[in-house]
């Protein structure tokens, strides 16, 4: 899954995992740097998700019920 289609929750969780790995510290330096870059990119993504979000609202109608109750 590319970062662009990731949900906020997934990006946020991944960011936390990267931080854990970096703090554990037994990585080769090139990997640490790569992880750090990925972490920075994820943090930016999380913030953009939070800033740009607008509440979406949809309404269900009672007309949908007929098919519902037929199934029971």
């Amino acid at each position, binding site marked *: 899954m590319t970062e662009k289609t990731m*949900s*906020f*929750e997934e990006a*946020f969780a991944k*960011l*936390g995992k*990267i*931080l854990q790995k*970096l*703090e554990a*510290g037994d990585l080769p*330096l090139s990997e*640490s*740097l790569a992880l*750090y870059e990925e*972490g*920075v990119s994820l*943090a930016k993504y*999380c*913030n953009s*998700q*939070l800033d740009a*979000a*607008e*509440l*979406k*609202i*949809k*309404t*269900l109608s*009672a007309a*949908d*019920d007929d098919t*519902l109750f037929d199934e029971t």
Partner: protein
Amino acid sequence: MQTPLFDFGPPRLSVSEVNAHIRQLIDTDDILQDLWLEGEISNWRPASSGHIYFTLKDSAASIRCVIWRSTATRLRYRPKGDGEAVALYGRVSVYEAGGAYQFYVNDIEPLGVGALYVQFERLKHQLAAEGLFDDEHKRRLPPFPHRIGVVTSPKAAALRDILNVLSRRFPLAEVTLSPAAVQGADAPPQIVAALKRLWAQSPPPDVIIVARGGGSIEDLWAFNDETVARAVYASPIPVVTGVGHETDFTIVDFVADRRAPTPSAAAEVATPDREELKSYVAGYAFQMETTIRQTIADRRAAVRQMEQQLARLSPQMQIDTRRQQIDDILTAMYRVQKHTISLHREQLSGQMAQLETLNPKATLARGYAIVQKGETVVASTNDVSAGDAISVLVSDGAFDAEVRQKQRIEG
């Protein structure tokens, strides 16, 4: 019917005639055709036809009642059953064929809030005993509910409040409004249907908010309804209730996975706060940066250490080390030499002192003389004869002499 010959004595009538007469009397009585009837419900029996039969009684008497199906569906208030004190609006009528009179109900009002509280307590105890309020059954709310279902009236302020809070706190969410009446006899079945609609969504919501604004106990009554409570209990999706004001507790509040005091509070409880999330993200970013800086600094220090070790092993370093070693050895050797020389010097002056004591000059100073005949030192009388020329060395010089005569000393 026999016509009497004379018109005296009580009339002779058939059953039908009597019943019809009674009916007519009642149908034309102003009071009986338009009244409110107060009493307590007993023998409440909803029939499969949709009509509801029951008895209304007070302490001394009772009367049979019926609610026709068409009226039952549009009742403002629907009693739960026996024991309920109600006021019934309607009229008395007579069922001619059976010779009975009944009260036909057109409207019902609950009598007194006390009756409601009794019902509330009864249902609360019953459901508690069944375990519907148990903590073990309550689920944790999802931390990031991307889909939120809301059951409430579409026209009410409660919905507006909820949407405001959600928009501020967690605008990433998609809200699905499943509308339902939140008051009146229609409300309980509508609320249950609204819940079912949300359960059937694909994908389903992550959390459901059931809410309505403040009101009297009668206004909130739908949320004390048993079918609504059982539906909330059966919900496959966690339910947060926000009904009434802070101090209002309805049965659904006890059954729900989480109760909030108001609709706005329910929206808050159901969602994380965007600002809080942003500060978490900032915190993560800060910690990551600190960690990576530390990692880099550590690596640099390790490299420096390596450099230092390397320098210690370089050819130049080895030459310098060897030079230093040679210097040290030379210094040591010089020190030893000095020491040895001074030792020898000491020895030498010691020996010279010793030698000095054997110096013949000291002996000469004491008055002794050294006699020489030519180069030879004369030590005995045998070394000379009379007439020899000898030299005599004394302490401060020498003189020549001639031997005149010699004499030997025995002893």
